[in-house]
Protein backbone atom coordinates (compact mmCIF):
# COMPACT_ATOMS: atom_id res chain seq x y z
CA UNK A 1 0.00 0.00 0.00
CA UNK A 2 1.03 3.62 -0.44
CA UNK A 3 2.50 5.30 2.61
CA UNK A 4 4.18 8.55 3.59
CA UNK A 5 6.05 8.33 6.87
CA UNK A 6 7.35 11.12 9.02
CA UNK A 7 8.73 10.67 12.50
CA UNK A 8 5.70 11.03 14.73
CA UNK A 9 7.84 11.70 17.77
CA UNK A 10 8.65 15.32 18.51
CA UNK A 11 12.16 16.49 17.75
CA UNK A 12 13.79 18.71 20.38
CA UNK A 13 16.99 20.49 19.50
CA UNK A 14 19.08 23.27 20.95
CA UNK A 15 18.98 26.73 19.44
CA UNK A 16 21.69 27.25 16.85
CA UNK A 17 21.90 23.58 15.86
CA UNK A 18 20.74 22.08 12.57
CA UNK A 19 17.39 20.31 12.65
CA UNK A 20 16.94 17.40 10.24
CA UNK A 21 13.50 15.97 9.53
CA UNK A 22 12.83 12.87 7.45
CA UNK A 23 10.08 11.98 5.02
CA UNK A 24 9.96 8.43 3.62
CA UNK A 25 7.46 7.12 1.13
CA UNK A 26 6.57 3.78 -0.41
CA UNK A 27 4.73 2.83 -3.58
CA UNK A 28 4.69 6.36 -4.95
CA UNK A 29 6.62 7.84 -7.86
CA UNK A 30 6.21 11.54 -7.24
CA UNK A 31 7.30 14.20 -9.67
CA UNK A 32 7.19 16.84 -6.92
CA UNK A 33 7.68 16.87 -3.20
CA UNK A 34 6.79 19.78 -0.95
CA UNK A 35 7.43 20.82 2.62
CA UNK A 36 5.05 22.87 4.73
CA UNK A 37 5.11 24.42 8.17
CA UNK A 38 2.02 24.30 10.39
CA UNK A 39 1.52 26.26 13.58
CA UNK A 40 -1.24 25.35 16.08
CA UNK A 41 -4.68 26.49 14.94
CA UNK A 42 -3.44 27.56 11.51
CA UNK A 43 -3.36 26.09 8.03
CA UNK A 44 -0.07 24.78 6.65
CA UNK A 45 2.27 27.29 5.02
CA UNK A 46 4.20 26.30 1.90
CA UNK A 47 7.98 26.36 2.29
CA UNK A 48 9.71 24.57 -0.58
CA UNK A 49 9.01 22.41 -3.62
CA UNK A 50 11.60 20.05 -5.08
CA UNK A 51 11.28 18.20 -8.37
CA UNK A 52 12.26 14.57 -8.98
CA UNK A 53 15.21 15.62 -11.12
CA UNK A 54 16.57 17.95 -8.41
CA UNK A 55 18.80 16.54 -5.71
CA UNK A 56 18.77 19.57 -3.46
CA UNK A 57 16.96 22.87 -3.00
CA UNK A 58 17.84 25.74 -0.68
CA UNK A 59 15.99 28.76 0.61
CA UNK A 60 17.64 30.91 3.23
CA UNK A 61 18.26 28.61 6.24
CA UNK A 62 16.25 25.75 4.72
CA UNK A 63 17.60 22.88 2.64
CA UNK A 64 15.65 20.00 1.15
CA UNK A 65 17.06 16.89 -0.49
CA UNK A 66 15.13 14.38 -2.58
CA UNK A 67 16.47 10.87 -3.19
CA UNK A 68 14.12 9.00 -5.51
CA UNK A 69 16.18 5.80 -5.17
CA UNK A 70 15.88 5.76 -1.38
CA UNK A 71 12.37 7.22 -1.64
CA UNK A 72 13.28 9.79 0.95
CA UNK A 73 13.41 13.54 1.47
CA UNK A 74 15.40 15.28 4.18
CA UNK A 75 14.49 18.74 5.43
CA UNK A 76 17.18 20.74 7.20
CA UNK A 77 16.92 23.98 9.16
CA UNK A 78 20.34 25.43 9.91
CA UNK A 79 21.05 27.82 12.79
CA UNK A 80 17.66 26.91 14.26
CA UNK A 81 15.73 29.43 16.34
CA UNK A 82 12.89 29.04 18.85
CA UNK A 83 10.63 30.70 16.23
CA UNK A 84 11.22 27.65 14.01
CA UNK A 85 9.24 25.53 16.49
CA UNK A 86 6.24 24.12 14.59
CA UNK A 87 5.01 20.98 12.89
CA UNK A 88 6.56 20.28 9.50
CA UNK A 89 4.66 18.33 6.87
CA UNK A 90 5.91 16.72 3.70
CA UNK A 91 3.61 16.23 0.75
CA UNK A 92 3.99 14.50 -2.60
CA UNK A 93 1.90 14.40 -5.73
CA UNK A 94 -0.05 11.17 -5.65
CA UNK A 95 0.24 10.61 -9.38
CA UNK A 96 3.20 12.11 -11.14
CA UNK A 97 2.42 15.61 -12.28
CA UNK A 98 -1.19 15.86 -11.15
CA UNK A 99 -0.58 18.60 -8.54
CA UNK A 100 -2.83 16.64 -6.18
CA UNK A 101 -0.81 16.16 -3.03
CA UNK A 102 -0.96 13.63 -0.24
CA UNK A 103 0.44 14.73 3.11
CA UNK A 104 2.42 12.99 5.81
CA UNK A 105 1.31 13.30 9.42
CA UNK A 106 4.10 15.75 10.21
CA UNK A 107 6.93 16.00 12.71
CA UNK A 108 6.75 18.46 15.59
CA UNK A 109 9.96 20.40 16.04
CA UNK A 110 10.79 22.26 19.24
CA UNK A 111 13.84 24.48 19.32
CA UNK A 112 15.03 25.10 22.86
CA UNK A 113 16.51 28.47 23.80
Amino acid at each position, binding site marked *: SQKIEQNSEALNIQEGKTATLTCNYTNYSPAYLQWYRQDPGRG*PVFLLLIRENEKEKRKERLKVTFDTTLKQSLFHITASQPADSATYLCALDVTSGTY*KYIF*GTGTRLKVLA
Partner: protein
Amino acid sequence: GAGVSQSPSNKVTEKGKDVELRCDPISGHTALYWYRQSLGQGLEFLIYFQGNSAPDKSGLPSDRFSAERTGGSVSTLTIQRTQQEDSAVYLCASSPPGTGGGYTFGSGTRLTVV
Protein backbone atom coordinates in the same frame (compact mmCIF):
# COMPACT_ATOMS: atom_id res chain seq x y z
CA GLY B 1 -8.34 38.76 -1.64
CA ALA B 2 -4.81 38.43 -0.38
CA GLY B 3 -5.27 34.94 1.00
CA VAL B 4 -7.63 31.99 1.08
CA SER B 5 -10.65 32.84 3.17
CA GLN B 6 -12.77 30.20 4.92
CA SER B 7 -16.00 30.63 6.80
CA PRO B 8 -17.16 30.03 9.39
CA SER B 9 -13.98 29.64 11.43
CA ASN B 10 -15.85 27.51 13.97
CA LYS B 11 -19.06 25.55 13.65
CA VAL B 12 -20.83 23.50 16.29
CA THR B 13 -23.73 21.45 15.01
CA GLU B 14 -26.01 18.75 16.27
CA LYS B 15 -25.68 15.24 14.98
CA GLY B 16 -27.92 14.72 11.97
CA LYS B 17 -27.92 18.35 10.80
CA ASP B 18 -26.48 19.53 7.50
CA VAL B 19 -23.58 22.00 7.36
CA GLU B 20 -22.05 24.14 4.63
CA LEU B 21 -18.45 25.27 4.70
CA ARG B 22 -17.27 28.04 2.41
CA CYS B 23 -13.93 28.69 0.76
CA ASP B 24 -12.94 31.82 -1.17
CA PRO B 25 -9.64 31.10 -2.97
CA ILE B 26 -7.00 33.51 -4.18
CA SER B 27 -8.07 35.28 -7.35
CA GLY B 28 -6.50 33.65 -10.39
CA HIS B 29 -5.80 30.34 -8.71
CA THR B 30 -7.28 27.69 -10.95
CA ALA B 31 -6.95 24.77 -8.55
CA LEU B 32 -8.89 24.40 -5.31
CA TYR B 33 -8.59 21.61 -2.76
CA TRP B 34 -10.41 20.48 0.35
CA TYR B 35 -8.65 18.51 3.08
CA ARG B 36 -9.63 17.64 6.61
CA GLN B 37 -7.43 17.23 9.64
CA SER B 38 -8.49 15.36 12.72
CA LEU B 39 -6.82 16.03 16.07
CA GLY B 40 -3.19 14.94 15.91
CA GLN B 41 -3.61 13.51 12.43
CA GLY B 42 -2.32 14.38 9.02
CA LEU B 43 -4.27 16.03 6.24
CA GLU B 44 -6.79 13.78 4.54
CA PHE B 45 -7.54 14.63 0.91
CA LEU B 46 -11.22 15.13 0.13
CA ILE B 47 -11.74 16.75 -3.28
CA TYR B 48 -9.85 18.70 -5.96
CA PHE B 49 -11.14 21.16 -8.55
CA GLN B 50 -8.97 22.16 -11.50
CA GLY B 51 -10.29 24.80 -13.83
CA ASN B 52 -13.31 23.61 -15.77
CA SER B 53 -12.43 19.92 -15.48
CA ALA B 54 -14.61 17.45 -13.61
CA PRO B 55 -13.59 17.46 -9.95
CA ASP B 56 -11.56 14.63 -8.42
CA LYS B 57 -13.90 13.38 -5.70
CA SER B 58 -11.92 10.29 -4.85
CA GLY B 59 -11.27 11.35 -1.25
CA LEU B 60 -14.83 12.03 -0.17
CA PRO B 61 -15.48 9.55 2.68
CA SER B 62 -19.17 8.97 1.99
CA ASP B 63 -22.06 10.18 -0.13
CA ARG B 64 -23.01 12.55 2.71
CA PHE B 65 -20.14 14.75 1.52
CA SER B 66 -20.37 16.92 -1.59
CA ALA B 67 -18.69 20.03 -2.90
CA GLU B 68 -19.18 22.48 -5.67
CA ARG B 69 -17.23 25.34 -7.11
CA THR B 70 -19.19 28.11 -8.74
CA GLY B 71 -17.78 30.21 -11.55
CA GLY B 72 -14.31 28.80 -11.00
CA SER B 73 -14.04 30.69 -7.73
CA VAL B 74 -15.89 30.16 -4.44
CA SER B 75 -16.36 26.59 -3.25
CA THR B 76 -18.82 25.12 -0.78
CA LEU B 77 -18.33 21.81 1.00
CA THR B 78 -21.60 20.34 2.25
CA ILE B 79 -21.90 17.59 4.81
CA GLN B 80 -25.36 16.10 5.18
CA ARG B 81 -26.67 14.31 8.26
CA THR B 82 -23.49 15.04 10.20
CA GLN B 83 -21.99 12.36 12.44
CA GLN B 84 -19.61 12.75 15.36
CA GLU B 85 -16.77 11.26 13.33
CA ASP B 86 -17.10 14.24 10.96
CA SER B 87 -15.65 16.47 13.69
CA ALA B 88 -12.36 17.85 12.35
CA VAL B 89 -10.74 20.95 10.90
CA TYR B 90 -11.68 21.36 7.25
CA LEU B 91 -8.96 23.09 5.28
CA CYS B 92 -9.26 24.65 1.86
CA ALA B 93 -6.28 25.44 -0.34
CA SER B 94 -5.76 26.95 -3.77
CA SER B 95 -2.83 26.99 -6.15
CA PRO B 96 -1.93 28.87 -9.31
CA PRO B 97 -1.56 27.35 -12.77
CA GLY B 98 1.72 25.60 -13.49
CA THR B 99 4.14 23.60 -11.40
CA GLY B 100 6.19 26.06 -9.45
CA GLY B 101 3.98 26.96 -6.55
CA GLY B 102 2.71 25.24 -3.49
CA TYR B 103 -0.71 25.42 -2.02
CA THR B 104 -1.98 28.43 -0.10
CA PHE B 105 -4.18 27.21 2.73
CA GLY B 106 -6.91 28.99 4.58
CA SER B 107 -7.06 28.88 8.36
CA GLY B 108 -9.73 26.21 8.26
CA THR B 109 -13.18 25.62 9.70
CA ARG B 110 -13.26 23.72 12.97
CA LEU B 111 -16.37 21.54 12.87
CA THR B 112 -17.67 19.99 16.07
CA VAL B 113 -20.61 17.61 15.89
CA VAL B 114 -22.33 17.10 19.24
